[in-house]
């Protein structure tokens, strides 16, 4: 960020600012001439797409907050007032609601890209870890946001998820009471969730800044997973990727707009249009789709863990489920340190490639399991899915470290590109 090697601008106004605060120099360096691998595929659009949705969420969220009332008696009706009586309130609300869904679509694809092409490996470990921090923050934000309309799923979802903490030995119940601010999910819970839901997106924004900063230190990975070796391998970010990203963002927005305008409630749950009622439990309490894989892992642990054939239990099933669920995210943090294989891209790792693609299938399998009642075949499928999820990180990846052959990589990006690889 130094200004020592600054080139003066022709425009006097820009030059006046830039010589005092070299912000235009920085923009030009980071988004103008920034050397970017020339061989990105469309998977590299999703970071920019996530960024656009984040901004969209902030804008619609602030406007919603101007009309929302965070009180158990008024929250539901204040949302309906936004839908009916606030000018374009329905548009703002549906954009925000579906924006959350599409934020997860974009970020899950973005994470898949990172895993498939080995973007988490050295030197991008911290970049990856900051990404997982963003994912965790997004999950917390989405969970608390879903509570705000104070419908049946809001209330019962909050009850189920906060109750998970009661599985912690000794202090669990006290923690839950502390989280609730009372003895059940009630007005104090709604109040604090609103405060946090307002705050966290700004924290996410700050972490995204760090994330992009880290990216601009290491530079981007690419589908071949090999380092850039010189100017023949790269293109200036502008206009090549500014224009490609703009196209990608617009294409994504078409799908998003189709949901916002034509099926705004298709991804949600009808029960959330019933006002919260602590006396009536819905038949199925189901979280939003983006939590389902993790919910399935939570419910897959149906057995106590202890010494077999005795009554000694170390970990009760409920606690086991909670550990398995949080563990599944913790493994993402650990991924850069678990995978020691020298090749990044799955293109040149046939074994890892299959395991990774199965991981995607497994993610969808767990998603379906999470939506079904925890009984019969669904429990078994969830357990198989959970087992594979853990085995991928703890068995397959260490095994590949030792055994997966190291293929010969293309000498450089531009040579591979010229050969049409």
């Amino acid at each position: 960020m130094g200004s020592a090697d600054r080139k003066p601008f022709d425009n006097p106004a820009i030059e006046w600012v830039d010589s005092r605060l070299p912000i235009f120099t920085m923009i030009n360096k980071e988004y103008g001439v920034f050397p970017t691998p020339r061989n990105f595929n469309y998977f590299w659009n999703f970071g920019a797409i996530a960024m656009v949705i984040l901004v969209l969420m902030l804008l619609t969220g602030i406007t919603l907050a101007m009309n929302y009332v965070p009180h158990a008696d008024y929250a539901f009706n204040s949302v309906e007032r936004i839908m009916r009586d606030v000018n374009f309130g329905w548009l703002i609300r549906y954009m925000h609601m579906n924006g959350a869904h599409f934020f997860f679509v974009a970020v899950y694809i973005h994470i898949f890209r990172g895993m498939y092409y080995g973007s988490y490996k050295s030197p991008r470990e911290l970049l990856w870890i900051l990404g997982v921090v963003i994912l965790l923050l997004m999950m917390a934000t989405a969970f608390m946001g879903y509570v705000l309309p104070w419908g049946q799923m809001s209330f019962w979802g909050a009850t189920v998820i906060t109750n998970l903490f009661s599985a912690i030995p000794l202090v669990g119940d006290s923690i839950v009471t502390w989280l609730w601010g009372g003895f059940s999910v009630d007005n104090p819970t709604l109040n604090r969730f609103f405060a946090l839901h307002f705050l966290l997106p700004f924290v996410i924004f700050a972490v995204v800044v760090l994330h992009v900063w880290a990216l601009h230190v290491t530079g981007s990975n690419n589908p071949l997973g090999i380092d850039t070796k010189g100017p023949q391998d790269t293109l200036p970010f502008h206009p090549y990727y500014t224009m490609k990203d703009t196209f990608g963002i617009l294409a994504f927005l078409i799908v998003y707009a189709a949901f916002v305008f034509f099926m705004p409630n298709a991804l949600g749950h009808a029960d959330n249009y019933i006002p919260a009622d602590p006396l009536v439990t819905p038949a199925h309490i189901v979280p939003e789709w983006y939590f389902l894989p993790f919910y399935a892992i939570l419910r897959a642990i149906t057995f106590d863990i202890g010494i077999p054939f005795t009554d000694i239990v170390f970990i009760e099933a409920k606690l086991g489920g909670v550990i398995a669920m949080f563990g599944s995210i913790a493994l993402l943090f650990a991924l850069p340190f678990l995978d020691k294989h020298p090749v990044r891209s799955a293109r040149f790792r046939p074994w890892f490639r299959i395991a990774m693609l199965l991981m995607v299938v497994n993610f969808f399998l767990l998603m379906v399991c999470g939506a079904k009642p925890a009984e019969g075949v669904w429990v078994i499928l969830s357990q198989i899915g959970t087992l594979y999820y853990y085995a991928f990180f703890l068995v397959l990846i260490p095994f590949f470290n030792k055994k997966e052959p190291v293929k010969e990589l293309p000498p450089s990006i531009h040579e591979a590109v010229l050969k049409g690889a």
Partner: protein
Amino acid sequence: MRFFILIVLVVFLGMNYAFAAGDAEKPPQMDWSFSGPFGTYDRGALQRGFQVYKQVCSACHGMDLKSYRNLTDLGFSEDEVKAIAAEYTVIDGPNDEGEMFERPARPSDRFKNPYPNEEAAKYANNGALPPDMSLITKARKDGANYTYGILVGYEEAPAEKELMAGQYYNKYMAGNVIAMAPPLSDGIIGYEDGTDETVEQYAKDVTQFLVWAAEPELEERKQMGIKVILFLLVFSGIMYAVKKKIWADVKH
């Protein structure tokens, strides 16, 4: 890669379909004028539906989120809405002397609820609470078809099914037992425009009215959606061309 994405999608959709079994019968899939991207409400059906709601359903079901002024959406004039509102008496106050008083409803008032409170509503209905109708079609899965289904889905209970007093057999209700007596029967409401006076027709009309109650913005939303999508299509088309042109002389 592309091939793989396709396989994942097919497997996922397949699984969802194969296992999407529900508890009650799937409601009849009706052909509504408001479905699809170009859908709009049928003003005639909305007005008839309001008549059904007013003459039948409003005896038990409130619509707390609607005001009489909203009825102009159905094609009623302001004077007609004033007259409709004035048919109801609401409690207002306190006045200068601290007394509550009754007055005819105005367009700005909310629809009058048939019961003073939930307890009274339950007491009058064998302990079952008639849900508020303002959002009913959004508060049920496949809401419009479901609501229509409930209204036409009453049947003689099969021999093995025991019903208690005040319970009725309905093939579309979860568990097949509903605490609402069949509210409609042929000919109970006189339509002025010559439309059929059958249970099916009443059910269709009142369902459309309830969808409007839940989604009054539907027409505006869809019309705006068409424009937004067209704009995005054109803009992304242009950007695709721009991108192609810029990238034309680089191998990548």
